[in-house]
């Protein structure tokens, strides 16, 4: 027995010119009624419409869609942590509405520090933020509680690779996923990561090899030397360059050793008497009468100085110095970092090697040298800034801002609040260039600003009237963001 509605649809598709409703195929209980409504008209279309109207109501009055016991989903486990306050909820709503990632980061940090979780209705939105912002993923996950963990089972995009091992991602992921997996793997288990890379090395294309090889910079160690030395034999220049760069960063690599053995005799201390021998004066003696071995050229040691600040020999020596770990100078000259740098700084002809010493302090991540080099010689070793005090970091950041450099990589960690002194100094500079430092600039860093700035911000003077009006708008926005930050602080 055909369903009445199907007969209506079939007839309507073909048209009454060619087909009429076949009441014989329908349930007998309908027949008399359908015949009844046909009466009084010979018009086929009218007859169809009347009968279809009856079946339309018949269908609606008797529909049944329910079915038995589809399995229920496993409910979420009870929460261990408590939900944040309604005030905190309101501040989260504001932050999300403004799409302010800096304040969102701050909110999540407060939530996590206070062992609280977000109310459930925020979970999908926050997970969408996590999807787009990798940096926030861990923090967001901590603030979503049991329900946050539970809900990820219903959206594969929210699993964030948590269930996949590094190897699985490395073996089956896309290019950037493989690289990221290798980066994390190097952090956790450098040897295992390298061995995995070595196992697939021959199958990879040159560009991929270069990309993946660069990840060995993380936790670079002496066990990597053999693999990197082998990589020097690759056809691709890019791969070779990366292998060479990494070998030059290893204090015990054969390249660094060879360079050191060659350079060591060229720099020595000469003691000379002064004031009739009453004072012993120490100066550096640099021997520039050398010829570098041919193979050093393959290590990237050149003899042509584009800046013409050095003689050919000085330039070669400068490059050699840049590859030598600072600690080797300490042993060789039997002096500490401060004394060695002072000796280099004594004479014009040796002073020019200080930037290369800074380069090596940077390469070999020597914080002791880094601090002296910044404090005494204004040379910034970026790789060691993380070991500096907050004050020194802020000092560097301000100096770099003057040179329009990206300061965030060098400033205190993401969760740190900057000092009021620094923020005011920063605002004094940035407020003068409101076109370059627009609202979005502050929107990205506002969580670092102390709330106390709210009362100080009006003290900032911008004299150019055009810039002033723009700055006024920006400062209003900063105040608004700081008010939200204040609200967040108060709500936890």
């Amino acid at each position, binding site marked *: 027995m055909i369903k009445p*509605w199907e007969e*209506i*649809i079939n007839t*309507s*598709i*073909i*048209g*009454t*010119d*060619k087909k009429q409703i076949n009441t014989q195929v329908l349930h007998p209980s309908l027949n008399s009624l359908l015949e009844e409504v046909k009466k009084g008209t010979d*018009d*086929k*279309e*009218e007859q*169809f*419409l009347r009968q*279809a*109207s009856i079946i*339309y*109501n018949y*269908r*609606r*009055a*008797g*529909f*049944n*869609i*329910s*079915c*038995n*016991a*589809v*399995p*229920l*989903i*496993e*409910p*979420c486990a009870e929460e261990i942590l408590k939900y944040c306050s309604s005030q905190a909820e*309101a*501040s989260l*709503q*504001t932050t999300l*509405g403004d799409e302010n990632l800096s304040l969102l980061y701050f909110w999540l940090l407060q939530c996590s520090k206070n062992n609280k979780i977000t109310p*459930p*209705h*925020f979970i*999908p939105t926050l*997970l969408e933020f996590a999807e787009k912002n990798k940096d926030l993923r861990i923090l967001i996950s901590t603030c979503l509680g049991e*329900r946050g963990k*539970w*809900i990820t089972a*219903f*959206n594969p995009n929210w699993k964030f690779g948590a269930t996949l091992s590094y190897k699985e991602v490395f073996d089956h992921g896309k290019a950037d996923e493989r690289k990221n997996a290798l980066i994390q793997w190097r952090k956790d288990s450098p040897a295992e990561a390298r061995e995995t890379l070595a196992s697939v090395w021959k199958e990879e294309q040159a560009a991929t090899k270069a990309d993946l090889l660069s990840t060995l910079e993380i936790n670079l160690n002496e066990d990597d030397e053999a693999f990197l030395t082998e990589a020097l034999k690759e056809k691709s220049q890019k791969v070779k360059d990366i292998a060479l760069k990494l070998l030059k960063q290893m204090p015990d690599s054969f390249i660094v050793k060879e360079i050191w053995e060659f350079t060591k005799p060229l720099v020595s201390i000469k003691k000379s008497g002064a004031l009739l021998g009453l004072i012993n004066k120490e100066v550096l003696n640099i021997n520039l009468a050398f010829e570098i071995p041919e193979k050093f050229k393959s290590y990237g040691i050149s003899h042509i100085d584009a800046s013409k600040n050095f003689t050919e020999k000085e330039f070669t020596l400068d490059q050699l110095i840049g590859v030598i770990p600072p600690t080797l100078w300490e042993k060789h000259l039997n002096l500490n970092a401060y004394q060695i740098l002072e000796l280099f700084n004594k004479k014009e002809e040796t002073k020019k090697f200080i930037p290369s010493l800074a380069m090596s302090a940077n390469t070999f991540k020597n914080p002791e040298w880094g601090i002296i080099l910044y404090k005494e010689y204004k040379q910034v070793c970026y790789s060691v800034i993380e070991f500096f005090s907050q004050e020194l970091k802020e000092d560097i950041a301000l100096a770099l801002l003057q040179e329009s450099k990206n300061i965030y990589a060098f400033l205190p960690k993401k969760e740190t609040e900057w000092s009021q002194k620094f923020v005011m100094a920063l605002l004094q500079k940035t407020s003068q260039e409101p076109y370059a430092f627009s609202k979005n600039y502050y929107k990205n860093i506002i969580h670092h600003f102390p709330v106390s700035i*709210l009362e100080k911000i009006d003290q900032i003077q911008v004299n150019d009237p055009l810039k002033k009006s723009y700055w006024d708008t920006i400062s*209003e*926005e900063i*105040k*608004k963001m700081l*008010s939200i930050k204040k*609200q967040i602080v108060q709500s936890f």
Partner: protein
Amino acid sequence: MNFTEDQILALAPDDASKKSGKEQANPSKWSNTGIDEKSLWGECQGSGKNPYRTQVDLANIAFKCSCPSRKFPCKHGIGVLLLYCRERTLFTTKDSPAWVKEWMDKREEKAEKKQEKIDKPVDAEAQAKRQQQRLKKIDSGIEELQLLINDIVRNGILNMPEKGPALFTNLTKRMVDAQAQGLAGMVRELAEMNYFKENWQNSFIDQLLRIYITITAFKNKGALNDNFSGEIKNLIGFTQSLEELKQQEGVKDNWFVLGKETVQQEQLFVQRNWLLGINSGQYALVLQFYVRSQLPELNLIPGSVVEAELSFYKAICPYRAIIKNTGKTISPKEISGFENWNALMKFEKEKYIQSPFIFELPFFINAVSLACLENKWFLNDVNNISVPIVCDGNKLHTLLAVSGGKNFSATLIGCEGAYEPIGVFINNNYFII
């Protein structure tokens, strides 16, 4: 006043106003803020010399601001409500200033005058003449519509995906000319139908038959009872006058605002508000029509409960209504809905049996849980009977998040087993899905 930020932002006329409203919710911009039982106010420093005076009528959710914006509510209106929501401590003053009192008094006066105007007698003869002329136009429009329906039925509907949109767009205009706004709306649905959707033929024939039944019933209106003919007239486009509606006896109840949806139809915004009478169990649809830059007369906030008297349009099953009087807005506590799917569907089928004009309805069902089979989602009731739901993407994730896989009460919109959840009531909180 216990509005959430979402509820407040839903009052903004557009996305730009939402954004600007949020920017205005900055304590440093506001002074002399206060709140009393009926109103909320504040002064906002704008670009001008004097601050803008912003005030909100909390009982009827209306705004006034001295700023020059033509948007209603303006960003200051949204801003001051958001600010109250975020920092209530800033609103300590309870004595409203003179400018707030004056506005509130004027509003009351205006409401009284409106009532007086309603009481004024109308010229019955002229009205009857106008009505007669309109009927003529409608009859001619209906004749044209009937001819086209017959043509479609005769030739079959296979070529509708190609011909349909243009054909029905023109016919919609013709129905507007014929002053049959209701029919125009029904024909417009055929023009805007998704002909690329699987089984579009079902929706098409459904709508075609709804039109056919309506015009057939209209032709026989003399033989119908008062409610039936009233409903038919409303469906054709003879909207029952507001004055008449306001005079008839209404249903006084605490009305739970189940949901809200605004759609744009050319220059007009149509806002649908679904309500449930907590004591009467009566469902209601309150429609509001407004043009851009205007504010709908009423701002109903989903999840809130309004003390109100609703007056229903004439119908076999009264459903569409207007709000006659409103009282205070309260937070929902216990809302009773259908106990299980059988009860819900029995109710729905009874409505269909009574009236062929009932289409989509809201339903509030208690104690359902989410179930899943082969990536299809269902709601199981207390008897473990499963019914599929129309829900995916963001809606599904919100549903999962707020329920946590546990029991909840839900508002569904739909018909004949195709139900879409639009709200979830759990632990005395209502969430819009």
